[in-house]
């Protein structure tokens, strides 16, 4: 039996743009793979790098961070902070040996239901190709020091 690997992807999204965009994909009855679990936050500025690590630690094979387009943030500049934070954080991830292609950063507005559905489809395919993220679980196993709450 050759059952297809179903990746688990955690999406951290802002409530004003991407969450609304995901709702629009729903009201437009677009179809996309059921592999993504959405965590709703007020703004991408609220997304701590620790959330991404926590998701990977919990067994996610991929992570998506998505918010309003630059300049469109409901809170004026939260997404700029998120973007800058991500640029810094990705270097650290790279250094620690976590493959960057497991984490996706994108902008989806409240009007972009189609873009949301397409992104989830392509992201799921990409992560599926990468296979299960055993590496992180192995790292956790080695250190045995879970991230404290």
């Amino acid at each position, binding site marked *: 039996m050759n059952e297809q690997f*179903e990746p*688990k992807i*955690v999406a951290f999204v802002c409530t004003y743009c991407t*969450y*609304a965009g*995901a*709702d629009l*994909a*729903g*009201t437009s*009855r*677009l*179809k*996309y*793979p*059921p592999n993504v*679990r*959405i*965590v*709703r*936050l*007020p*703004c991408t*500025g*609220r*997304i*701590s790098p*620790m*959330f991404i690590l*926590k*998701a990977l630690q*919990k067994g*996610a094979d991929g992570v998506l961070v998505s918010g309003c387009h630059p*300049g469109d943030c*409901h*809170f*004026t*500049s*939260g997404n700029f*902070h998120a973007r800058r*934070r991500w640029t810094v954080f990705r270097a650290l991830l790279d250094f620690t040996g976590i493959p960057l292609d497991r984490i996706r950063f994108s902008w989806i507005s409240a009007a972009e239901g189609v873009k949301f*559905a397409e992104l989830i489809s392509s992201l799921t395919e990409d992560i599926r190709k990468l296979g299960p993220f055993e590496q992180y679980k192995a790292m956790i196993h080695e250190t045995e020091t879970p991230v404290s*709450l």
Partner: protein
Amino acid sequence: MAKIGVFICHCGENIAARIDCARLLSAMDDHPGVSVSLEYKYFCSDPGQENVKKAIRDNNLTGIVVAACSPRMHEATFRKACAEAGLNPYLCEIANIREQCSWVHSDKDKATEKAIDITRSLIEKVKRNNELQPIEVPVTRKALVIGGGIAGIQAALDIANAGHEVVLVEREPSLGGHMAQLSETFPTLDCSQCIMTPRMVEAAQHPKIELLTYSEIEQVDGFIGNFTVKIRKKARYVDMNTCTGCGDCIQKCPQKKISDEFDCNLGKRPAIYTPFAQAVPNIPVIDKENCTYFKNGKCKVCAKACPIDCINFGMQDEFVNIEVGAIVVATGFRIQNTAMYGEYGYGKYPDVITGLQFERLASASGPTAGKIRRPSDGKEPETVVFIQCAGSRDPSKGVRYCSKICCMYTAKHAMLYAHKVHGGKAHIFYMDIRAAGKGYDEFTRRAIEEDEASYLRGRVSKVWQENGKLIVRGVDTLLGKPVEIEADMVVLATAITPQPDAKEFARVIGIGCDEYGFYNEAHIKLRPVETATAGIYLAGACQSPKDIPDSVSQASACASKVIGLFSRDRLEREPVIAMNNEAICSGCWGCVVACPYGAVEKKDILSRSGELIKRVAFVNPGLCQGCGTCVTFCRSNSIDLAGFTEKQIFAEVMGL
């Protein structure tokens, strides 16, 4: 011990068709902390909500999760049900299993698994939710209106007529804005000044309106209901309290050759002047840059001419601070810098003018007293070419949008020209005629049919001068042929652009603007007059190009929002705001840098004897909008966001 209620809504078939609700229900039953789980066809219905309330009361629930449609739909409904059942409304979470699950997946097994994950993670979150209370803030019942054009005047009058105090600030020496410059208005050809000046006088004399002309906003602090605004009253060098507006000083001023901005540089004015005859207030101002006394230290002719000695060369700018509860921004527009179109020869040939300059030529109060005369030699032009979209809808010039009013005013110009110059010929180059509005299409038809304007669909490539004529070369795309017209005057319908300092000003007052500098509304369809900053509203062309009726309606809409805000003593706000634990705050001020609203202040912690122990961050609950950017910045982990705390979110992730 948590006692959570889970309510699974079928939403008719919307959810139940794609999600195995029975399986979802039994999965929730086994989840630790869940004391009751129910399913129902429509939980948003009255009996559905009664079920929720009953379950909360009967089981003494400490939190609920409703697995249903998006929280954007019914979060408010279920929070209300919680409150009615005696549970704090913020102990309610919505698991979105419709928009983000049943509607987008076709595999029932996998959709059900996803629904279980979503609901479970929110159960973990809701266990860590805290009881929150709405925040109450007092309201100062006084409004600030920025901009004294027609939009600002309308907003100020409407608010003042409802009985509230208004401060109306205009940076030019007189009220009026662009509307005072216009000759006649479409689609009725009403004289613009005749309908405008009574409004200006009404605003100036209104007992509830405090008028501050020749003044600018320096700084805005505070939040909805409680703004503090610093205003600079620029020095007029004329005492406003004693000046009677006799105008002797203006007559006597020896410096008379300054380009008149109000006449779009077509006329001249002295150094001490009022912008136009009906200026409100009718008190002159000295143009310091061009005044002989300020340049050479000698002259003072105006002071000698003044019969009551109200000219004061030593006057300084004054600063005043006012407290207001709401702000209406009506700062208007500018017309695009026409130098961008070198091929049309603006600035090179004096007879190539802008639409606004044509307004001044056609205006009875203008430099030619309403006669259409060429600026170069004062002759009556026999042929005039109007070029529409000179700047608008041209990505290469950085203006992709339609300026909205040019089709209409160009048709009006062609009509005014036909009425004033009998036998004159008007040619109009256009891209499309956009005449949507009451009586607008009929108006452009009249220009074509009765006043015989010749409309040519196509663009103009070049304008040059030959034997005293302006040669306009363009194309008529309907005939598919190039056209050359010998004209006496060319009028460019230049694009409407934001004020040159619009972006800077947006930062001063704390609102957003688009790539051009037009101010952003909170929602383009459903909240078109509010900004993302609570308590600040938009009226007129500062939001986007608009004609007079649109500006006036938007101004009245702003006024109704402000009056609605002022109908209460105190305001209630969502309690989703950041809180700082002062005991562990290290005072690194990362949060101060992060906050887009300037809501984080530095607070001194003093000992009993009054000595400074340490300085910590304090989040002003009135200013904080709850984005949570500061939380992520916080190095000491002292700031957290109510409703989205670190604990809640980690639990939610762990629950997935």
